[in-house]
C-alpha cells in the first residue's frame, strides 16, 4: 500500500510540476492572435529599406536578377550578405549569399573566386570537410590567395589541427602584411602554450601597424585579452576587453568573451548592461541568462524559456550547430548534467577550441566522469594550452580517478 501511495504522490507532484512548466511554456509561446489594431508594430527589420547598405543590396540583386550568371555581381552580393551575417549574427544572410552563388554552387570546379566564397559559406554551416576541400583546391590553383589561406587557418584552428594551421600561417606570411601574418601565428601560439611570446609578438606588430580599422583593432585586442588570461593576468585582460568594447563597432565574439570573463570573475551584474540589447543572439542571450540566474533577476526565467524554445526549434530542424551553447545551457541553467555531457562530447567531435574543451571538462566534472573527457585531457597535454582555469578543472577531474 505504501508503495502505491508514494508512487501516487510522486505522480501527482510530477503532474503538478509538469503543469506549471507547461503553463510557463504556453505564456512564452502564445497562441496566434489578431493584433489590436493596424498600427501595432510586429517586427523591427535589422536593416531599414532606406539604409545605404539596403540600397546597395537592392541594386546588386536587381543586377543579378537581370543576369544571374554575372559572377562578379553574384560574388559582391554574397560578400555583402556574408558580412551582414557576421555583424548581425543572422544565418539567413548566409542563405541569401548561397542563393546568389547558385549557378556555381554544385559545380565540381567553379572559378576561383566562387570557390573561395563557397568554402566560406560552407564553413559557416559547419560543413568543415566541404569547406576544406574547396580551400585546398583554391590554394592549389592560386598559392598566393591570402583569403583562402586565412580561412584554412581558421578551420584548422577550430578543429585543433595545429600542424595544418602552422602551414597555413607560414604560407600567409609570404604573401601578407606584417600584422596579419603575425596575427595568424600569434593566434596559433597563444592557443598552444606560448601565450607570453604570442602576446609580445602581436602587441608589437599592432603598435608597428599604426592606424587600423575598428574591426582589426577589436580582433587584436580581443586576442590580446585572451592571451592575457592564459598568462594568468586578468587585470591586463580586462584593459584589453574594455579598449575593444569602446571601439565603435558591434562584435558578438568580443561581447561573448568579455561576458565570460566577467562571469568567471564573479561579476554577473556587469554582464547585464553589456548584453541587455542582444536578446536575439543565442550565444549572448545564453550569457545574459546565466548572469541573471546568478543574480536571481526576474528576467532569468523568461530568458531561459526563450533559449529552451530556440534549442527545441533547432532540434526540430535537425541542426547540430549550437551544441556547445546547448551544453552550457543544460549544465548551468537547467542543471541537466547528463545531457550537457552528451552534447559537449558530440560538439567536441566537430569543434575543438578552448571554449569547447572547457564545457566538456566542466560537464565531465559535474558528472564525475573523467573518462568522458579523455580526449580533452589529451588535447590539453598535447597542445600545451595554458589557461589556468582549464588546467584547474582538468586537475580536479584527474583527481577523481581511482
Amino acid at each position, binding site marked *: 500500500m505504501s508503495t502505491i501511495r508514494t508512487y501516487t504522490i*510522486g505522480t501527482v507532484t510530477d503532474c503538478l510540476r509538469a503543469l506549471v512548466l507547461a503553463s510557463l511554456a504556453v505564456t512564452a509561446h502564445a497562441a496566434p492572435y489578431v493584433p489590436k489594431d493596424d498600427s501595432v508594430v510586429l517586427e523591427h527589420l535589422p536593416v531599414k529599406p532606406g539604409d545605404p547598405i539596403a540600397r546597395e543590396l537592392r541594386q546588386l540583386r536587381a543586377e543579378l536578377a537581370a543576369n544571374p550568371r554575372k559572377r562578379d555581381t553574384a560574388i559582391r552580393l554574397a560578400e555583402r550578405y556574408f558580412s551582414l551575417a557576421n555583424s548581425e549574427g543572422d544565418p539567413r544572410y548566409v542563405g541569401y549569399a548561397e542563393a546568389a552563388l547558385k549557378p556555381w554552387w554544385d559545380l565540381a570546379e567553379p572559378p576561383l573566386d566562387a570557390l573561395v566564397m563557397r568554402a566560406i559559406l560552407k564553413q559557416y554551416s559547419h560543413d568543415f570537410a566541404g569547406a576544406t576541400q574547396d580551400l585546398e583546391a583554391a590554394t592549389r590553383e592560386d598559392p598566393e590567395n591570402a583569403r583562402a589561406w586565412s580561412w584554412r587557418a581558421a578551420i584548422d584552428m577550430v578543429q585543433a589541427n595545429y600542424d595544418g594551421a602552422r602551414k597555413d600561417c607560414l604560407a600567409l606570411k609570404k604573401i601578407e602584411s606584417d600584422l596579419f601574418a603575425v596575427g595568424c601565428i600569434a593566434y596559433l601560439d597563444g592557443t598552444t602554450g606560448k601565450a607570453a611570446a604570442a602576446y609580445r609578438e602581436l602587441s608589437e606588430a599592432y603598435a608597428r601597424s599604426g592606424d587600423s*580599422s575598428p*574591426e582589426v583593432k577589436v580582433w587584436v585586442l580581443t586576442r590580446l585579452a585572451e592571451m592575457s588570461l592564459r598568462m594568468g593576468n586578468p587585470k591586463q585582460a580586462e584593459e584589453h576587453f574594455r579598449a575593444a568594447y569602446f571601439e565603435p563597432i558591434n562584435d558578438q565574439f568580443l561581447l561573448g568573451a568579455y561576458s565570460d570573463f566577467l562571469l568567471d570573475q564573479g561579476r554577473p551584474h556587469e554582464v547585464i548592461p553589456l548584453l541587455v540589447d542582444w536578446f536575439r543572439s543565442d550565444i549572448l542571450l545564453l550569457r545574459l541568462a546565466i548572469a541573471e540566474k546568478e543574480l536571481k533577476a526576474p528576467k532569468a526565467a523568461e530568458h531561459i524559456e526563450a533559449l529552451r524554445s530556440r534549442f527545441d526549434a533547432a532540434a*526540430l530542424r535537425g541542426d547540430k550547430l549550437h551544441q556547445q551553447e546547448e551544453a552550457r545551457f543544460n549544465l548551468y541553467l537547467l542543471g541537466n548534467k547528463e545531457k550537457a555531457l552528451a552534447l559537449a562530447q558530440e560538439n567536441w567531435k566537430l569543434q575543438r577550441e578552448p571554449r569547447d574543451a572547457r564545457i566538456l571538462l566542466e560537464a565531465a566534472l559535474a558528472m564525475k566522469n573523467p573518462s568522458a573527457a579523455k580526449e580533452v585531457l589529451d588535447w590539453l597535454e598535447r597542445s600545451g594550452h595554458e589557461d589556468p582555469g582549464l588546467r584547474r578543472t582538468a586537475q580536479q577531474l584527474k583527481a577523481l580517478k581511482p
Partner: protein
Amino acid sequence: MRALIAAVLALAAASAFAHKPSDSYLAISVEGTDVSGQWDIALRDLDFAIGLDDNGDGDITWGEVKAHQADIAAYSLARLKLRSAGADCPVHATAFLADDHSDGAYSVMRFEGACAAEAPAIEISYSLFADIDPQHKGLLRLEHGGGTRTGIFSPERATQSFELEKISALTQFFDYAREGVWHIWVGFDHILFLLSLLLPAVLVRTGGRWQAVERFAPAFWDVFKIVTSFTVAHSITLSLAALGVISLPSRLVESAIAISVVLAALNNVFPLVHGRRWMVAFFFGLIHGFGFASVLRDLGLPQNALLIALVGFNLGVEGGQLAIVSTFLPVAFGLRATWLYRRLIFIGGSLAIVLVAGIWLVERAFNMKIITP
C-alpha cells in the same frame, strides 16, 4: 583589403552561429478528403521575399501585413503542393493572424482545401524560399486520424510522401478508456474522496451514534446515489474543461481536490452533513472533474475525435470507480457490525485520510514536497 580583414578576423569566428536560422512551421491535418492547416512564416522572410515594409521605416506593422495578405497567400501557397492519389489537393487561405515565436514575429495563415479522393498517402512538395534562401527549412507537423507525424523540408528534400494509416475509432476509444481506468487507479485522491463518502453507507446514525444498517438495499441505494451524483458532476466539468469552455488554474483545482478529501473524511468523524452525502458528492465531483480534465489535456486531445476520446476517458474513469465500489461494498457490508469496521476502519481510516489529504493540501497549495517518493 576589406575582404582580407574579414578573412583574418575569421580566426576565432569560424564557429560562430548566433541566431536561429529561417524556419517556417507548417501544420497540416488530413481527415478523409478534407485538408486543413496553419502555416507560420517569419515576417522577416516574407519581407525579404515580397516586401512588407511599405513605408520603409524598418518596422512591420499589422496594417502592413494585412495589406499584403493576398500576396502572402499567393506567394506561399504557390510553393506548397499537396497531392493525393495522383491529383492535386488545392487549398486556399481562410484566416490571417500573427504569432510570436522565439526568434520574432510570424504571419499565421490558416488554410483549407480538399482532395479529390481519399488515398493511403499524401505527397507534400515544399519549395518556400528555396530560390532565395537555400538554408530555409519547413518544419511539418502532419495530423491524421489522431496520430501526429513530423517532417523537415529543405531544398534537398522538397517532396516527401506520408502514409496515412487508419487508426480506428474503436482503438482510439479503448486507448482513452484505458487511460481513464489507469488514472482512477493511480489517482489516489479520487479514491480516497469516494471512500470517505462510502464508509458511512453501511452505517446509520441514530441518536448521535453510528449503528449498522440492517439490510443491504438501503446501503446499496446510498452508494448508488453517491456514485451517480459524483459521476454526473465530474462528467459535466470534465467535458466543459476538455472542450475549453472553462479553465481553472491547476494549482487551485488540485488544492480544492485535497480540501474535498479532508472535508469528506472529517465529516465521518464529526458529522455535519448526514443523509444527503450525494449532494456533497455532486458539489465536490464538479471540482474533481477539472482534475480529470487536466490529465486528459496532458494526454493530448485529437481534434477530430474529441467526442470519442472524451467519452472513452470518462467511461474508463467510471469503470475504474465501479470496480472499487463493487469490491468495497460487500466487504464493508459484511464487516459493518464489527468493532473493527466501526472504530478502526471507519473512524481510524477517516482520520488517516484527513492526515494524508491535509499533507497534499499543503503540498499543492504551497507547491512544496513533504512526502517525497
